[in-house]
């Protein structure tokens, strides 16, 4: 039996790799995408272009402006002369933040003991705006501390909440995103290899030939599944290597748990791919099916936006998404050094998905199309 299945696997590999175009499609893009996306997908904001409108123009206001200029997070792009210039600068995205210091800034401080500055932010990307606001408030808080120290009122400063991050002390989003890209690309590659494969044979009529051979349905399934599994494993290995040695994402946990996760995920992804493939009569339907699974599976996986932010109904829906569990395993092993026991609740659902989809695929294999 083993020998027969191996013959099938060989045939599948030939069908996949003999065509130059097809070979490139499976190998080239994942590598390019890993590097490009690894740098592109970031929530970190650096070099925020800031414009300053200083109507006060005193020692104090210039001191405050200087703190913004000196901060590595900000980059001064324009000094404005009048409030009318704020709108064009923000509209055209020349600045993300305008620091507006009014004329009575210093006077208020000396008479009332407290004064105000205005921060005007470009909210088109609300996440960026939030981060920029955080940076700016940080600078002003530090400035406040300096002012208080100058006046010798240190004793009256209330305690601050200071946060310390576990697993990612500098809160670099690359550490979060790159393990996610490992998941993203393994999923895409396995879908590419499996989702159209049965439909293609159906359309070309070669599937009937396979069905008249003495192969059992599960052997046929194995023959279709193994190439996807092997290609997925090789690409996952490569991507993990790039993540560790190129992007320098720490791999704290054990390789054993990581590979167990890769293997179980591949099983479930192949199951979904073969199920789509066996249900589709034409390659167009297969492609449609692959897209219809792939796109929600990626967007609703927690790759970029957390599952916890979704409404409960959508959260329930993500329970059938193998990506969701895979990402937790990847990030858990990479950053937290999570053990198999801590991740067990992520493994079982993926095994369940694999069992169901592979069973459906086996049954649907025998379906005649006419």
């Amino acid at each position: 039996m083993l020998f027969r299945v191996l013959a099938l696997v060989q045939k599948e590999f030939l069908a996949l790799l003999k065509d130059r175009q097809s070979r490139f499609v499976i190998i080239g893009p994942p590598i390019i995408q890993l590097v490009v996306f690894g740098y592109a997908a970031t929530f970190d904001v650096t070099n925020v272009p800031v414009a300053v409108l200083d109507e006060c123009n005193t020692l104090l206001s210039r001191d405050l402006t200087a703190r913004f200029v000196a901060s590595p997070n900000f980059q001064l792009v324009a000094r404005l002369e009048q409030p009318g210039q704020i709108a064009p600068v923000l509209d055209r995205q020349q600045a993300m933040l305008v620091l507006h210091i009014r004329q009575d800034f210093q006077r208020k401080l000396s008479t009332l003991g407290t004064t105000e500055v205005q921060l005007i932010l470009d909210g088109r990307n609300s996440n960026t705006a939030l981060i920029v606001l955080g940076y700016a408030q940080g600078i002003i808080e530090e400035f406040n501390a300096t002012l208080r120290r100058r006046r010798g009122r240190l004793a009256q400063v209330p305690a601050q909440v200071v946060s310390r991050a576990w697993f990612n002390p500098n809160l670099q989003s690359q550490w979060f995103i790159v393990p996610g890209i490992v998941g993203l690309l393994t999923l895409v590659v396995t879908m590419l290899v499996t989702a159209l494969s049965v439909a293609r044979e159906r359309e070309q009529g070669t599937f009937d030939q396979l069905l008249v051979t003495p192969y059992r349905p599960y052997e046929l399934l194995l023959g279709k599944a193994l190439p996807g599994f092997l290609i997925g494993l090789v690409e996952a290995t490569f991507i993990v290597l790039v993540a560790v040695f190129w992007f320098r994402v720490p791999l704290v946990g054990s390789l054993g748990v990581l590979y167990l996760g890769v293997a179980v995920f591949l099983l479930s992804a192949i199951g979904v791919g073969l199920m789509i493939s066996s249900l589709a009569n034409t390659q167009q339907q297969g492609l449609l099916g692959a897209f219809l699974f792939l796109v929600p599976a990626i967007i609703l996986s927690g790759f970029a936006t957390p599952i916890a932010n979704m409404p409960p109904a959508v959260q329930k829906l993500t329970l059938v998404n193998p990506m969701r569990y895979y990402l937790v395993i990847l990030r858990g092993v990479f950053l937290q050094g999570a053990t198999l026991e801590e991740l067990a609740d992520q493994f079982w659902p993926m095994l369940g998905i694999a069992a169901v989809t592979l069973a459906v695929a086996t049954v649907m294999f025998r379906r005649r199309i006419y």
Partner: protein
Amino acid sequence: MTTPKPFAPAARHRLMRLRGLVRKEWLQIWRDPSSIAIAFLLPVVLLLLFGYGVSLDAKDVPLALVVDNPNPDTMTLCGHFERSKYLRPVYFVNMRHAQQAMLRRQVSAILRLRDDFSRENLQRRGTIQLIVNGTDANTARIVTGYVQGVYARWLADVQQRRRAFPPPPIQVQHRVWYNANLRSRNYLVPGLVAIIMTLIGALLTAMVMAREWERGTIEALMTTPVSMGEVLLGKVIPYFGLGLGGMALSVAMARWVFDVPFRGSMLALLAGSVLFLLVALGLGLLISTTARNQFVAGQVAIIVTFLPAFILSGFIFDIRSMPWPIRALTAIIPARHFVTILQNVFLAGDVWPLLLPSMGVLALMALVFLGLSYRKSPKRLD
């Protein structure tokens, strides 16, 4: 080129042939209604799913509270946390349990109020420690902001009642333009429309030419007097109609289902949409003409459309934060320009200095893709 063709067809005939081709394509679409479902049903389903599902606004974040020495001050502070819309406090008796919960992803942050925590002591102690799970760096930052916000409000409360601390020398007033409540949905939904339309365009056309090649019907087309340009045009026109319908549906949903403000003009929206659709269809046709089998056409469509549109378009990851080589690379992603157009038209209005370059690039891309598909489809069989 200059020699006059003896049987040069009159413009009237050309139009007639084009009409015939469009009719043929339309019949094909109509008899296999999957294209119609792709154009109209798919955007609605995906936009509903993603519009609600994709959000960066953390809410009900589980926060572990470890109170070493409960007293009236810790009580009022915890009360503030309980009332927060964004945080959901979970109490733990000691740090060990709280840390275990964090390892098991049950809580996202731990705030410890040590046994000497009280109003009087606040002035002597420098810091109150918050531990956040940094795995998801972005959420960690947001949670830190929430906790500091709640704490600041509690301090202000204490200060009002007891006049314990003087106000800070400089207070920040902030105003956020275009999206005053910092609702992430307002910028994500217009981006989603662009992503979804990228998919629709590719799905509609990625396989149409490859299909003709593979089924051999291209041969039948070639025996007729129609030119290749006419064949392509005959394919673009009906799918363009379908795509525009789907687009109108998505924009209407963004406006009325997801309540995204619409501050620009219909003219800008229409111009951007028409250009983008031409690019999306052109890209699909190009993939489908260069890859002569559907298998490869399907694979390429998956790779070059969805993932780049998702990550490199500025839909969720801000392009201004990317390193410059990547920023330059995003210029060749059609969805990036459409996201710029949509986000501005929805949130900021017709900012022509931003819209025009994007529209120009889209127009150029449409020309290149459609022109290349024309060049790449020679009217002969090899």
